């Protein structure tokens, strides 16, 4: 009954490859996010989607492309992986227009290692 689930949990790949991380939420939320947590544990938002529409794009390289087939899914596709892409990627979801004290729910993270 995981609210926000990401697959895979761990991903090791070579430079130059293309990879995807999947995210699904069963909370009925209409807004989903991708965050990147770097080696220093700093968490920064990358993208936000609402009902399959891109809302936020925080100056992320265009090698990163979010795909939202429906409002319960937001996948992250990364082309031409670089060493600097190694990080933990978190998916999250929330509901637009809920009271602001409603927290976003996070997935368990995907640790991406580029070698």
């Amino acid at each position, binding site marked *: 009954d995981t609210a926000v689930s990401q697959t895979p949990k761990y991903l090791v790949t070579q430079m130059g490859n293309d990879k995807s991380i999947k995210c699904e939420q069963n909370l009925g939320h209409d*807004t989903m996010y991708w965050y990147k947590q770097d080696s*220093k*544990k*700093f*968490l*920064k*938002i990358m993208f*936000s989607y*609402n009902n399959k529409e891109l*809302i*936020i794009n925080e100056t992320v390289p265009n090698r990163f492309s979010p795909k939202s087939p429906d409002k319960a899914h937001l996948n992250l596709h990364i082309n031409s992986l670089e060493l600097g892409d190694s990080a*933990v990627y*978190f998916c*999250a979801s*929330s509901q*637009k*227009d*809920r009271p*602001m*004290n*409603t*927290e*976003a729910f*996070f997935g*368990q*993270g995907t*640790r991406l290692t580029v070698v």
Partner: protein
Amino acid sequence: AQTVTQSQPEMSVQEAETVTLSCTYDTSENNYYLFWYKQPPSRQMILVIRQEAYKQQNATENRFSVNFQKAAKSFSLKISDSQLGDTAMYFCAFISRYSGGYQKVTFGTGTKLQVIP
């Protein structure tokens, strides 16, 4: 734009003791919330406590409480009777809204807390 600063990268506390994690923020907004999230080694982000900016009363959740000083833009987390399971990264988060009603979350840089037996 808002910024959130956690000036203590690492802290340690003896089991059963009390520890305070600091957080300061900078914003020009009036309507916002502040959260503390906990990230244990499992990586799961867990909400610990939340504070409404318009409330002067400090939030409390069992052993966790905050000291919210709005004028000083300070939002510290106090953990009483520390337990081994409190060992984790703690993130202060500032919650506001983009135009259109979308939630915007700005995280601090985190404080790594180690509870020592």
